[in-house]
């Protein structure tokens, strides 16, 4: 029994994830104080962050700005590289390990005691529609609409306004209030899961070699069906029926909840691992082959 591992000796992913989320919350609250003391080497929000010589730009926000203006700067292009590489390697971990709105959304979800919901299939496909609408409207309006409605930007610009300027702006407050209402009214975490253009783009950056949850067919309990399997997932996904673009953010909650000993049937691995051969049938096969040879 320790902080990092539970009594079965398995890694407590959620604890590490909370630490990571809280680190970013603390970072974006501390940053405006530093800025008030004249620090300009580190500044910004989750739309774009300056870390000394490095600039980071949210890929969806950057793409939206590119489409809106038809013009771009080197900073916008190079700023998207690291976030894109992160998503290509580790999947949309930004949503589950970084985004403060994600943390807030999880807390609301928990307070409301929402469990697995029966969600119509077309809701899951909203993600691609969301990207198309956001990017399309950005181009038509000539305005980076993703930036306007990006939850990670709004939630990190709020402490900047309160601490640095001495008061939140009406625009930021009203948009955040709108998102909160969406959180309460819409099906479980629908904004994060399907509507948020930032997360949607990250989901589609997955490749066949990206870090994902795998499962061992030899130890996985066949009695756990789709509905039971998704009970632990805040996104209502069953780890046994994961597809590349299902929307899994690699939060690790299912791995942690997986029943059994120190070696869970679910595990993180890069890409899809081939299912191990079912060795329990081997003696039967051998004996059949032997008999065939004898006859």
């Amino acid at each position: 029994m320790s902080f990092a591992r539970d009594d079965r000796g398995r890694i407590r992913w959620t604890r590490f994830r909370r630490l990571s989320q809280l680190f970013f919350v603390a970072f974006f609250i501390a940053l405006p104080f530093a800025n008030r003391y004249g620090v300009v080497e580190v500044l910004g929000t989750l739309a774009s962050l300056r870390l000394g010589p490095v600039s980071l730009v949210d890929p969806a926000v950057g793409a939206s700005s590119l489409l809106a203006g038809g013009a771009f700067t080197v900073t916008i292009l190079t700023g998207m590289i690291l976030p894109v590489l992160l998503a290509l390697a580790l999947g949309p971990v930004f949503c589950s390990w970084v985004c403060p709105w994600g943390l807030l959304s999880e807390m609301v979800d928990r307070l409301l005691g929402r469990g697995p919901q029966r969600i119509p299939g077309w809701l899951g496909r909203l993600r691609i529609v969301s990207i198309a609408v956001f990017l399309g409207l950005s181009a038509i309006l000539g305005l980076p609409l993703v930036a306007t409605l990006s939850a990670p930007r709004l939630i990190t610009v709020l402490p900047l306004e309160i601490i640095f300027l001495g008061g939140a702006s009406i625009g930021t407050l009203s948009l955040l209030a709108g998102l909160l209402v969406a959180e309460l009214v819409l099906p479980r975490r629908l904004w994060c899961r399907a509507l948020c253009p930032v997360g949607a783009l990250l989901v589609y950056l997955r490749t066949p070699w990206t870090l994902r949850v795998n499962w061992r067919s030899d130890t996985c309990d066949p009695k756990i069906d789709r509905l039971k399997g998704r009970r632990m997932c805040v996104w209502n996904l069953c780890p046994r029926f994961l597809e590349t673009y299902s929307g899994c953010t690699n939060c690790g909650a299912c791995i942690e909840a997986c029943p059994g000993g120190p070696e869970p049937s679910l595990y993180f691995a890069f890409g899809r691992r081939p299912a191990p051969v079912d060795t329990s049938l081997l003696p039967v096969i051998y004996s059949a082959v032997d008999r065939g040879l004898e006859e």
Partner: protein
Amino acid sequence: MSWTRRSLLTGFFPEELRPPGARREEEFLALCIKCGRCTASCPYQSIRQAGWTSGLAVGTPVIHPREIPCYVCMICPDVCPSGALEPVEKSMVDMGEAVVDTETCFAFLGILCRACIDICPFQDTAIFQNLDLEPVVDTEFCIGCGLCVKACPAEPEAIRVICTR
């Protein structure tokens, strides 16, 4: 197409002042990602976020000179990642033009006042006193920083900056 888009973006209210080095309004709106880097870099807390009066441009950086004007330190264009703000020479900044309200300006009412002239970073070129001791703005040299708006003792202010980008 352009005018409907513009009214949707900026609403039907007069345009607000942008930080120094801002591009033409249409280009500015297309590029600005509202990341807040200019806001956080301003040592005077001059740069605020636009409200819904700016339409869909809500969240873009604006300056309200009567509250806190722009001191033209030119830090913000250097930290802008999107190119919505471009580094330019101080004298080439064009945020707008100051306009004196001759009805309410103390100097025009016969009271000796040169608050706006004294504060101007381009004193005697952008704003100067005529022979009647009244302030006159030369729009060619005025960069629209709004320091005069802040300094004006009249209530409401007798000098405003009109956005001309």
